[in-house]
């Protein structure tokens, strides 16, 4: 069996093991107030790592797809130009990644690695990534009213795509290995044998957590159908668009958004570095071409675009899931109340003539 248990007080030792094996480890910390964030674990802060915390707004996606990533260095002199692609990647482990964000990384894997062209930068980071998933079991801390992983079918317990999965059973945590890399860690003595009672306890706790979610029903399938068949009126898109402040927040906090722009910037004398930066379809410059022509000028066209890209059957078929993991972040950050769950609801109501 690929499951073990670990004593509560030993859970953070997993971080020590990973660090000893050469991983940089990112883990969740509490800032001031509600603020929580992933940060690299150091000797100084390692005791402040928290297992149960509200999921940080800024998703751990950035550990495989950095906000700004150097792609190559270009050196030009009299002898010509030399392009040196960036190749340096340090193995990184994310401790405490939630199931929704694991699903986000699974989505990115399908997008960046499964098509005709493979993204070499993403691939390199992904190959060097170790994921320690924590199942949301602390109803007070882990879950908020925006969470809707149950509708997106990504949580509360991820079914795969992690290396290790931890679930709080009270006195002990249950540990499940999702990969050979993860299972290898079971050689360490902190992992003890799990028995049938633990498995039963796990099932009980999960059932309880599922009942605690406020959002249990979303009309994803109806939304997918409406969007794919062009069943959403222009007026509805305009209503949604009118509420968009074009801040781009939804795309920045989304664990499943993939868009980026590329920019050259001058570094040392005569050298240029080419970087890629997250981009957002909410921004008007997103489709503007040199010369000024913009095929998607109206804000509702851009909103239409975002939800089409996330929900249309064509993309669902290609990527095997809607491009939404149910983390609820977009709903949390949106000033106009047009995060994914709200839009799904607006689409459903509009089709019902409500």
């Amino acid at each position: 069996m690929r499951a073990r248990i670990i004593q509560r007080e030993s859970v953070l030792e997993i971080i020590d093991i990973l660090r000893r094996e050469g991983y940089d480890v990112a883990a969740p910390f509490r800032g001031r107030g509600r603020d929580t964030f992933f940060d690299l674990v150091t000797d100084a802060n390692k005791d402040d790592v928290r297992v149960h915390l509200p999921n940080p707004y800024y998703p751990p996606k950035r550990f495989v797809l950095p906000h700004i990533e150097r792609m190559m260095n270009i050196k030009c002199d009299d002898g010509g130009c030399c392009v040196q692609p960036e190749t340096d990647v340090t193995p990184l482990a994310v401790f405490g990644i939630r199931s929704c964000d694991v699903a986000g990384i699974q989505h990115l894997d399908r997008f960046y690695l499964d098509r005709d062209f493979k993204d070499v930068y993403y691939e390199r980071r992904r190959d060097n990534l170790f994921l320690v998933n924590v199942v949301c079991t602390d109803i007070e801390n882990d879950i908020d009213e925006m969470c809707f992983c149950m509708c997106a079918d990504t949580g509360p317990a991820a079914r795969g795509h992690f290396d290790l999965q931890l679930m709080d059973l009270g006195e002990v945590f249950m540990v499940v290995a999702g990969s050979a890399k993860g299972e290898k860690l079971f050689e360490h003595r902190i992992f003890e044998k799990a028995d049938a009672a633990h498995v039963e306890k796990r099932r009980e706790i999960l059932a309880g957590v599922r009942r605690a979610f406020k959002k249990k029903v979303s009309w994803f399938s109806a939304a997918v159908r409406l969007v794919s068949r062009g069943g959403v009126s222009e007026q509805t898109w305009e209503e949604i668009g009118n509420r968009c402040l074009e801040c781009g927040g939804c795309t920045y906090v989304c664990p499943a958004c993939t868009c980026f722009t590329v920019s050259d910037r001058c570094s040392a004398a005569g050298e240029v570095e080419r970087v890629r930066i997250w981009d957002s379809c909410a921004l008007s410059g997103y489709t503007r071409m040199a010369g000024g022509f913009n095929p998607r000028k109206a804000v509702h066209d851009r909103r239409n675009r975002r939800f089409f890209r996330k929900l249309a059957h064509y993309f669902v078929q290609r990527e095997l899931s809607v491009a939404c993991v149910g983390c609820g972040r977009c709903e949390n950050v949106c000033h106009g109340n047009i995060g994914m769950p709200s839009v799904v609801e607006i689409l459903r109501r509009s089709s019902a003539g409500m």
Partner: protein
Amino acid sequence: MSVTENIYEPKPAVLERVVDEIDEVKTFYWRFIDESEQRRFLERFEPGQFAQVSIFGHGEFPASLPPSPTEGELFFTVRKVGSATSAMHEMGPGAVFGVRGPYGNGFKMESYAGMNLVFVAGGIGMIPLRSCIVYALANREMFGDVKVFYGAREPRGLMYMPLWREYEESKDVECHLTVDKADAEWSGHVGVVGSLFKKRDVNLTSKNTVAFVCGPPVMFRFVIRDLKTLGFSDSQIISTLERYMKCGVGKCGHCCIGVAYVCVDGPVFTYKQIKQLGEDI
């Protein structure tokens, strides 16, 4: 384990000569510095494809490939419009820049074997069409009649003039030029591109014919209307789209229209497909 190719890495190329085409538009003849890269590119590319051009320090832009693979020579025709293209316009022979590609689906000319070909272009819309016109004439026996209709605002807005002069003498192709506004030296037809279809010496029918249309949005709309009057169906009209693009390989997301990425699913679409995408041309 096989090493994944870095799809974003531009390969250094050197500029060989620059030709002034029309105002703000120049043609840049170039070759890859690495010979094997040059061969690989020439073997792979098809009419209608494009490449990503890197002007180091200024950025990267997608550019149509106007040469036909049958010419064995590589060049870009580029309008000065943004910062990277402006920087390219400052470059002279010997300058080094980067190219990656070729990308996109291209015109898939072999699928039109045995058919009549009509090319309709306005202004710099000729850049992507030049490739398949030259290709079609190099493989003349593959196709039926070949007609070219090319218009610009004024005579000095017509590109690739030596080519048209040569075609006007040729029996292999009908070549019709027009300008919206003539100058003192212009003795040819005056009027929009669509008005060429009604010229007395033009016999244009939709039967077993496919029309390649490329040009500014206004011209595009009117030409579509004229072609439909002549009986062309939406799937007999083919065009190539342009969008803001950063990667060229379906990752950056900018060129996605409806369910298609212009860079990998296009840039060549039938008018029927374009209508289904549901966005302005």
